[in-house]
């Protein structure tokens, strides 16, 4: 399979199924300056909500697993 085609497939999938990609990009970078029109609207209660996952890691999959030694520094 041509790799470029893979990339395009990725973009197509993102574009077709999700929030428009350009919007995502705007949300991450461009809006960091002063274009905060959407961001200044309060649409939910003033509390940080973090959702819990529906799919969990089964601890048994990691029974006896020894992680790689931690390497510090650069």
């Amino acid at each position, binding site marked *: *399979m041509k*790799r*470029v085609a*893979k*990339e*395009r*497939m*990725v*973009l197509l*999938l*993102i574009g077709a*199924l*999700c*929030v*428009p*990609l350009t*919007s*995502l*990009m*705007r*949300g*991450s*970078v461009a*809006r*960091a*300056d002063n274009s*905060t029109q*959407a*961001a*200044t*609207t*309060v*649409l*939910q209660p*003033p*509390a*940080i*909500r*973090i*959702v*819990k*996952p*529906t*799919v*969990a*890691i*089964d*601890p048994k*999959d*990691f029974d006896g*697993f*020894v*992680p*790689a*030694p*931690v*390497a*510090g*520094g*650069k």
Partner: protein
Amino acid sequence: MNTKQHITLSLTVSLTAALLSCGPAQHKTSSQRSAGIGPGGTGDAASQTNAGVSSSTAAAAAAAAAAADQARALALTGCYKDYPAAQGGLRSLSNDQIANVLTDITGVDLSTILAGLPRREQGTKFPNAALAGPLASSFIDKWADTAFSVAAALAADTGFIQRFGGNCVDAANPACVQRVIKRLGTLLWRRPVDPSTAAQLADLFKNPNVSGAPAFALGVRQMLEVALLDAHFLYRIEAVRDPATVIQPLDTFEVASRLSFFIWQSAPDLPLLMKASSGELADPAMIAQEVDRLLLDPRAERGFRQFAFDWLALGKLDALKLPAATAGTKPVSFDAPALREQAFSFLTANLLRSSGSVQKAFSSSVPNQDPSLVGLLALPGVIGGLSVADVTNPVKRGLFVNVRLLCHDVPPPPPGAGAFKAETLALDVTPRERLDKHLTNPSCATCHTTVDAIGLSLESLDAVGALRSQYSSRKNIDASGVLTFDGQAQPFKVTAEMLKILGQSKDVQTCLASTLAEFAWGAPPGTANTCELSSLPQPGAATNVNSWSGMVRALANTPTFLQRINDGVKP
């Protein structure tokens, strides 16, 4: 089904299902929500922020920290009224992050293979601000080659196979196959492997032409090829869970990744993933606890070094080319890696591993430097990168201090503006005499009045940071001036005096907090972030609050860090 077909399948299926898991048509996301995703926050902003204080400190310090946290919590509550632009959605890993993730998970040195990855243009102070959105096809193309090499190297490493397979390395045994898939997939993708994906990956272990250990290794190799090309490896993906809402909550796995990539520049480790899996990471107290744990880990030094490298542009040191000593001149000793390492050590000791105020980085004496010179500007590894050959460049230095240490906006020079060149600086005219021309031209003076004044105040430090009193022309150096710090004009006569004033100023500490916020959030703070920034530890707060760990804890509790914006909704 062969590997390439599986890669296609993976890109098609896993990207479709997982890449963002977003939009109203995403039945998986909807069913996930109806299946039990609920409000994970267990308290208001005050209780969340109160939880960020370590109880291990002395009682008095803890009380002071709690009071400061209470104040921040109150400030944060107000921040929701003008909620800033949260970052999120789709963010690709930087090359360094890819290397860190693979090293941390596999324990195998893959640096030679990964060195071939093309560098990506940043155009920003921190690379994470430039990594929002999709990767370029040229990078994906190169990454595919690299990923295949990584997979081959790992599959050939018996230690790696042993670590992930243990005593169960039989490709014909479904339990062995499922276990290695779950272990590798969970760690590489930073979330659980769903059963249908695991089943698809298991097909890669069915290779009729080989048997025994080689069959298992081949399966691992093919699985890795798929896993490394998957969007869940290359991107940090944050889903839209409620398409009608602007402000989107993160799930606990997304929070885990935000924390680990902020503090370690790498993937969450297994303990952090387990806290996410159990839902414990929805509790602000657990987030604070994990922040402390991550900061104590050696990987925090790597993340900190990345911050320091980008913050202080320490890479510029490599571009400094000093001329060889000629007859009658004193040879200049210059070892870029050693000077950079000295800078890292100083910053690590006075910021990351210091329990005191971040002010120490600007006011502590520097090893092997004249005792009168204090703060990070006196580090040869920092100041050396701002020189041109063996002469100083006051404009570069002034710009650096203005932008990087004081967070002042300095517009780019107008078209046609000149630049300093080493040969012109070598003339028998002092930089102060030359820069005076800026002040006689109104269009130059607007910016150069401040920029040049700071640059000239550092003239007693030569090109590599050594203290001097004369130029090579034997003219005496005049580093005196008047600069405004903390809103007050402060005169000084020599460089050491200016460094001392700078070290005591609140402006540099406030700028550092803003800079760290940019690093944490992945984008420069804007006017909408003013409220959040004001909730961070302030200069003059108790030292354990205004410490590096205090700042990191506070940032990990900000709305921008813990939520994202859904740009698909327009108010």
